[in-house]
């Protein structure tokens, strides 16, 4: 659970009275919401490293895809899938 997973920002919406930028992130075929509060420079189309719902850094596309593929290979994407609905 300590690894951050790279994904692509598909859309951004403002929440908490406009204070917080939340993004819809695509991880392969999985979609998740993540906060962009730690990466103020990130915009739609950028790739970001996401850890438990928070983007922690911007990465380039090539690096993102390489890392994502590796994480999928070693079975580290379970935390994206393995959780119940609210």
């Amino acid at each position, binding site marked *: *659970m*300590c*690894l*951050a997973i790279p994904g692509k920002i598909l859309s951004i919406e403002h929440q*908490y*009275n406009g*204070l*917080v930028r939340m993004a819809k992130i695509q991880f392969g075929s999985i979609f*998740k*919401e*993540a*906060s962009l*509060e*730690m*990466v*103020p420079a990130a915009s739609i189309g950028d790739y970001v*490293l996401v*850890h*438990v*719902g*928070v983007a*922690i*850094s911007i*990465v380039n596309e090539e*690096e993102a895809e*390489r*890392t994502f*593929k*590796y994480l999928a*290979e*070693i*079975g*580290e994407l*379970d*935390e*994206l899938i*393995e*959780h*119940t609905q*609210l």
Partner: protein
Amino acid sequence: MKYLSEYRDPEMVEQYLKEISRIVTRPWNIMEVCGGQTHSLVKNGLIQMLPESVRMIHGPGCPVCVTPLHLIDKAVHLALEKGVILCSYGDMIRVPGSGMSLLEAKAKGADVRVLYSPLEAVKLAKANPDKEVVFFAVGFETTAPANALSVIHAQREGLTNYSILASHVLVPPAIAAVLEDEDTQIQGFLAAGHVCTIMGIDEYYPLVEKYKTPVVVTGFEPVDLLQGILMVVRQLEAGTYQLENQYSRMVRPEGNPDALAVIRQVFEVSDREWRGVGVIPDSGYEVKEAFGLFDANRKFEFSQEKAEESKECIAGQVLKGIKKPHECPAFGKKCNPQHPLGAPMVSSEGACAAYYHFSQVLENV
């Protein structure tokens, strides 16, 4: 060498292995601190491919594994007796407490939920104003910004029914504790890449100086790991000790300033008990008093008799790198991922579970 074909860069893997073998002249003990790195080293069979004289020792870098028993018991108590909605990351709910795990509490009717992110727990609290929602916030530095942000989001929402049960641990004090322990004989460290993406690398300079031990900030992919190991071995062979950054494509020396600001807003450094290791001074985070309303430790009283660890489990020695998982008499027999005696058998980042899952790879170790 049958696993080499699985790498995207088999030539580079081979090159690094050759170079490590070429320069190494005597045995060295190197610890990788991060459980994700352990998982990667074991899964890829890299441990077998390294020359015998490069001995990788697996460190305490699995947050689920080092979360103390009494906090698990407290989480179980809150879920079973206090009627809270208790949420955490997937691995955490399967770790045995002294009585039961959160998963077993769930089977007894407690409302225990696995969430991907603490920010989801805040939404859960907003949707359930008549219930207390507690997020069991375990983690190393990488996870701290998310857990801290959840508190800030809850405060912004004006929620009074959200709190976190913090079990936050820090890497540099753990490295110091390992080096202070006379039973461990670690000569070099791979520091955890993603932790440094948040924290930067400055806090490792004093460690390198004080203990005259090389530390290389390293990623978790096979080529990263081998490059990090090569950098440590080079230093050891040359008799030098420096801080180096193998993972500079992800780790800036200053870390992520926005993440650090949020951590410092919500948390303060405190002494922490590490399961199997004991109390390490200044090795974790507590919620600051200013955010006391969101601190489950302040919000809910819980007293219990001293929790007892399983006598058969040698997790403490495994976490400090003194023993390998398969040197435990219970390994794979009485203790397995379905029936774990200790936490390192639960999390995929725990050394015992990594060895168990890939025991076929490791049958020659």
